[in-house]
């Protein structure tokens, strides 16, 4: 089954420093770190103490609320430090890597095994956290069976990892993971790929393939869900990122949890932006300094520039990231920045901003907010970049006033914070849309979920 989906509303942000399609092996990272904050609403319960030895794939902590959801080490080595923040919340778990990896053996499992077997294996081997659910955009509930599973086979985010390139040669793993996932739902595994291009998903079995075209956020799984089969109240759907499918597939085929990632190092501040083979939780400096940076004053982001996490240049690759973006910091003043004509920034208006004249221009944007935080004033502009059949402004406001009925009615079950990244980008009032939506989802989860 193949269907064409055309996204009309949106905005593709073209930034300088797209990763060149060459792949290098990043130098092996000496230390690794897992940040529990990558796993939203999960309270870790440690299994391994400081000084303990772990193999790659061995559980280091599990979820306090659901003990069967395990989180495993991406590498074999010694757990050196459990860093804690306010209220003794664990902020980072550091692991010093061995020179050679030793993997915990889970045994080979045929992807056509029963759903229960596959589920048990994913949970045991720490692959469950790769499965996200909607509503609430959190790690999937182990009790509920999903209506459908959605996978976006491409990304339209700025400087994003080109999955056609980074998944090349992983067809077996992908197919194994897709077949296995199809056993976990009575519905279908929906995979979306771009209209053109050589997607590895093109010839896969056990899936419903959709071809999607249009500007960003066409590649966001949330957009695709809204067009293919929106989430209704009471339903649960799962989403998995393609790079995580590879790890799931490899687990089934080889019995090992191999946390390998092909990461796009991109951004205008990188000397030679390209792809690196590395691992979840690795020090980003291992490959950033291999490529070299143009300037000291930069923002390093684990993820893309719209939804990623700010990390220090000595920081670690996030659990779900397949892109590291480095852009200039914008911590400088700009004389009459509010009224002079603007040629070097993106804008959806034409208020003396001229990006509409140059639709193909590639920009070098920094992290300046280009203005101060204000109440919502302008209306009608979010709708231009928001392809979901919803009212974004009203939804944000319902989250701010914590009106659960209104949030539910307006379609809160369908969204994740990342769906509001573009409205946040163009927001004239510089409101933190993704944070507002996150808080709204958390409130709903607490009160209803």
């Amino acid at each position, binding site marked *: 089954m193949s269907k064409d989906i055309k996204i009309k509303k949106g905005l593709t942000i073209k*930034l300088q420093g797209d990763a060149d399609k060459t792949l290098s092996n990043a130098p092996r990272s000496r230390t690794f770190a897992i940040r529990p904050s990558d796993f939203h609403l999960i309270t870790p319960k440690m299994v391994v103490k400081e000084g303990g030895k772990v193999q790659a794939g061995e559980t280091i902590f599990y979820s306090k609320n659901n003990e069967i959801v395990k989180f495993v080490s991406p590498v074999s080595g010694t757990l050196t430090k459990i860093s804690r923040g306010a209220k003794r919340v664990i902020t980072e778990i550091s692991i010093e890597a061995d020179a050679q990896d030793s993997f915990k053996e889970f045994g080979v499992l045929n992807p056509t095994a029963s759903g229960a077997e596959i589920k048990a294996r994913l949970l045991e081997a720490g692959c469950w956290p790769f499965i996200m659910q909607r509503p609430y955009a959190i790690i999937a509930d182990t009790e509920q069976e999903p209506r459908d599973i959605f996978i976006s086979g491409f990304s339209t985010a700025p400087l994003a990892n080109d999955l056609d390139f980074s998944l090349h040669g992983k067809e077996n793993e992908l197919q194994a993971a897709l077949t296995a996932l199809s056993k976990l739902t009575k519905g279908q595994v929906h995979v979306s790929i771009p209209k053109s291009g050589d997607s590895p998903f093109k010839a896969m079995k056990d899936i419903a393939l959709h071809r999607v075209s249009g500007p960003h956020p066409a590649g966001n799984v949330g957009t695709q869900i809204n067009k293919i089969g*929106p989430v*209704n109240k009471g*339903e649960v759907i799962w989403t998995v990122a393609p790079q995580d499918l590879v790890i799931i597939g490899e687990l089934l085929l080889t019995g090992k949890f191999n946390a390998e990632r092909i990461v796009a190092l991109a951004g205008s501040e990188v000397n030679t932006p390209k792809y690196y083979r590395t691992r979840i939780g690795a020090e980003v400096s291992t490959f950033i300094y291999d490529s070299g940076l143009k300037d000291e004053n930069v*923002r390093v*982001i684990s993820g893309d*520039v*719209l*939804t990623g996490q700010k990390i220090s240049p000595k920081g670690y690759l996030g659990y779900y990231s397949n892109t590291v973006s480095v*852009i200039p910091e*914008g*911590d*400088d*003043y*700009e*004389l*009459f920045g*509010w*009224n002079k004509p603007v040629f070097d*920034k*993106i*804008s*959806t*208006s*034409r*208020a*003396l901003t001229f*990006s509409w004249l140059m639709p193909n221009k590639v920009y070098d*944007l920094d*992290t*300046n*907010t*280009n*203005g*101060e935080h204000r*109440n919502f*004033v*302008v*209306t*009608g*502009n979010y*709708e231009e970049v928001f392809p979901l*059949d919803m*009212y974004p402004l*009203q939804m944000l406001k319902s989250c701010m006033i914590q009106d659960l009925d209104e949030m539910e*009615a*307006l*379609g809160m079950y369908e969204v994740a*914070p990342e769906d509001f*990244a573009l409205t*946040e*980008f*163009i*927001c*004239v*009032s*510089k409101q*933190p*849309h993704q*944070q507002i939506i996150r808080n709204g989802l958390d409130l709903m989860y607490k009160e209803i979920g």
Partner: protein
Amino acid sequence: MGLKQNLHKLKEKYKGTKMAPAFNALHTFLYTPNETTHSGSHVRAADDLKRTMNTVIMALVPCLIFGIFNAGYQHYAAIDATLRLDPLGNFFTWDNFILGAWTVLPLVIVSYLVGLGVEFIFAVIKGHEVEEGYLVTGMLVPLIVPIDIPLWMLTVAVIFGVVIGKEVFGGTGMNILNPALTIRAFLFFAYPTWMSGDKVWVHGAKEMAGQPDAISGETILGSLAQNHEPIYSIWDSFWGFIPGSVGETSTFLILIGAAFLIFTKVGSWRIMLSAVIGAIVMGLIFNGVVDQGWIQQGSSFYGLMSETFWHHLVIGGLAFGIVYMATDPVTASQTNKGKWIYGFFIGFISVLIRVFNPAYPEGVMLAILLMNVFAPTIDHYVLKGNIKKRLKRLKAKTA
């Protein structure tokens, strides 16, 4: 050490103090702040609220300049009617400009000083940044009042409008009524003799009333409401060589402003277009009523009812209201569908009030304020439509 570093040091010094908002307001006027993103999207688009508001002000500047010349022109033309034979030739003169500047600029200055003063005080008391909303309001106010309005009245009205119309709700973005129109409505009901009639629209008319050299400055709407034939042609009112509130007379320049606002995507074309449609529909209905002979020539409504329907768009403040006031995003409907309904009724009700309330021949102010109040209700029903669709989907699933 440049200005930038010095200001940065001052900013750090004032940080956390009561005066920080006041300082920041001046600082950010010169420099966009060095603020960087913390959560969510790491990059942001170029537009901020200052730029948006500034765009509206730019769209208003032609009306202001024209209003200055027109203030002088109307004064001299009322004394010497022969000037009207060649309006274009007698319009852009130094005499007109000097007299106009002398009368109009004080209105602008008072409006900004008082309004921004109130904003600063509230920002300091409440500890939030000074918001840009008043930059536009402060420009609109002098353009929608009669030329001779005493400055103390304007002061009182501006304080009332900013405090009651906006600050009590929480500042820009939170208000229900358009602040500029709140100010005008306050003047209108508190000091009606200064806001309507045939003696307020031309500089000096009020002072000279009753004297042998008295001048009159009846507006077109005023004449029509009293079933007089107006002395101005429709072209005069299109170009704007007519008496009226300071900046609203030239439909031509308002159209240019509208084009600019629509092009920059700052003003909503949906509201403007639907308001024009609303006014035309109401105008056509009244023309139809006259054609049917249901209204006799003697009726007090005859003058305005029989006015050709599209003239309504050119005379009075309707065009100005539609382009600059109805499109205020805060007080208008906030959904795109809602904007069509909201705009339509503004046009429709404006003409309705014009015809049926000859005491207040300009209806657009009241129409916009009325629709401001109804805008959330309109949005509520538009949202209901979206919500229903979602419920239907759910029903189809579970059924």
